[in-house]
């Protein structure tokens, strides 16, 4: 009995100051995010690139050192990835996936080929390994569904006739991620080709299983965590998400993939309710993830990769625009709508960073992080500006002359 209070004091006293330091750093980081978020909303660009920039100026090589809170930020970033991918998986119901596959698999294939090849080629040109180049291919391939969905709403384009084309392409990218992420996770472990093929087959099997569960039994999975109490629902979903993500990480499939597949299998009422609950939590931890990604990059490393990042940004902006125009034309959208579709698909964001993060976690290619950061910084900002002014940017497609706005 007598030793207990002593032990307590012993435990509390020295780390007490440390806890204080962690909280102070965390507070500063979150406040910086809040200020940047406001600024981004004011000038009308997405917050992701600013969060990345904030991370770049913090930590090693930056102006603001972050030391005490780094452990927490690392865990927070991991939680951010889990939530980002859980909600990406939740975004689309099995019915949405079916519709997407049925109506736009061709456009999806064109999208993947046209936008992944430039990244892959750039990786090879820079002399990277096949695995690192494949990661860069993923970075350039995937559009930011977060930025695009948000801006479509902000610019009142949800009802536009080209919007289903855009959303179906995002769904196809979602499905492609379900295959791509597990395969990359396997390759990153550094398996030989044969081992890789076997484990990739297993990974695809797991994905197929998740899809089957999603289509057939999602009601049972959903019932497992369903509750009318928001608190219990949140605890259930988060608990399941972290557990699945952790187990996936333990068998080296990466936490991100686990969370994503769980998101796919949850559906129905649970999905709808979680949709209302999780986004604020995702935004907080997602913000921490982007900052942490920025912190892990020394800003001095950005300069050497600036030129490749810029070249890649220009090329893959072009290939995305071409993909969008082609996909919209196929379903009979007019020239202006085609142009809008193309410009809308340009922004890259959170998932490019998640993919690059996989490579950084595996210690794969030191230049992948800075290159991806530079690339996303450019295309998140430029892409959302292109989206915003889509109707004012003269389209090479329109036969009639575009009138300059008189206002």
């Amino acid at each position, binding site marked *: 009995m007598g030793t207990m209070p002593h032990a307590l004091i012993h435990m509390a006293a020295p780390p007490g100051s440390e806890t204080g330091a962690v909280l102070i750093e965390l507070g500063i980081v979150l406040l910086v995010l809040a200020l940047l978020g406001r600024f981004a909303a004011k000038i009308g660009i997405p917050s992701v690139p600013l969060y990345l920039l904030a991370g770049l100026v913090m930590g090693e090589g930056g102006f603001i050192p972050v030391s005490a809170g780094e452990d927490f930020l690392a865990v927070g970033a991991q939680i951010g990835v889990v939530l980002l991918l859980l909600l990406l998986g939740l975004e689309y119901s099995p019915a949405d996936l079916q519709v997407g596959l049925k109506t736009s698999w061709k456009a999806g294939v064109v999208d993947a080929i046209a936008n992944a090849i430039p990244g892959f080629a750039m990786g090879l040109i820079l002399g990277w390994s096949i695995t690192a180049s494949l990661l860069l291919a993923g970075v350039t391939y995937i559009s930011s569904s977060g930025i695009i969905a948000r801006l479509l709403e902000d610019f009142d384009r*949800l*009802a536009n006739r080209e919007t289903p084309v855009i*959303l179906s392409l995002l769904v196809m990218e979602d499905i492609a991620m379900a295959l791509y992420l597990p395969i990359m996770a396997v390759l990153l472990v550094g398996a030989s080709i044969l081992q890789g093929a076997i484990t990739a087959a297993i990974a695809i099997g797991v994905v197929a299983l998740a899809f089957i569960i999603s289509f057939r039994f999602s009601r049972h999975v959903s019932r497992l965590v369903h509750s009318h109490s928001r608190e219990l629902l949140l605890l259930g979903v988060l608990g399941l998400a972290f557990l699945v993500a952790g187990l996936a990480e333990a068998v080296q499939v990466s936490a991100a993939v686990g969370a994503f597949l769980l998101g796919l299998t949850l559906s129905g009422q649970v999905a709808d309710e979680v949709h209302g609950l999780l986004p604020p939590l995702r935004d907080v931890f997602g913000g921490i993830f982007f900052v942490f990604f920025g912190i892990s990059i020394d800003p001095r490393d950005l300069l050497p990769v600036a030129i490749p990042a810029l070249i890649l940004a220009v090329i893959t902006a072009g290939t995305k625009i071409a993909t969008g125009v082609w996909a919209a034309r196929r379903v009979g959208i007019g020239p202006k709508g085609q142009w809008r579709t193309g410009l809308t698909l340009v922004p890259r964001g959170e998932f490019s960073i998640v993919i690059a993060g996989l490579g950084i976690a595996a210690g794969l290619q030191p230049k992948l992080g800075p290159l991806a950061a530079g690339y996303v910084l450019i295309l998140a900002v430029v892409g959302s500006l292109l989206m915003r002014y889509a109707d004012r940017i003269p389209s090479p497609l329109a036969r009639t002359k575009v009138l300059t706005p008189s206002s």
Partner: protein
Amino acid sequence: MEIFETPLPGVGTRYEFTAEAGDHVGVVVRRDGRRDIALYDREDPDACRGTIELTEGDASKVAELLGGTNITTRLDELTHTVEGLAIEWATMPESGGLTGRTLGEGRIRTQTGASVVAVIRKEAGIPGPMPDFVFKAGDTVLVMGAADAVHRATRVLTG
């Protein structure tokens, strides 16, 4: 008027139609219940000239103003919240069942546990009919309760 339906993955469903006056109108029903009404541009038929965003509450008010009823969607929500709740519309037959008799005579509440919550006669709705309410042929009777109770109550009503 023909209404075209297009799924919007991750968002909801879009309905569009051309009004008799020639305006092209779209309605987006989002998964969270919000609605957007959009008016398409005549020059660029793929874009909207403007959209109106309505919350679920706004939308049902507007629906009432436009002369619609939203009883069915409200009931849908109710069955969502109370699990196992069944709602049925029974149409009174020409003869037999409780046609021409009172609600009290049917002893529906005591015998089945289901409740008769409203009756629609011609265009008028009669909420909460009293035990001395006399059913007429063609009345639409709204019965609520547990699924099997509603089923039995409907049998009592329609014979």
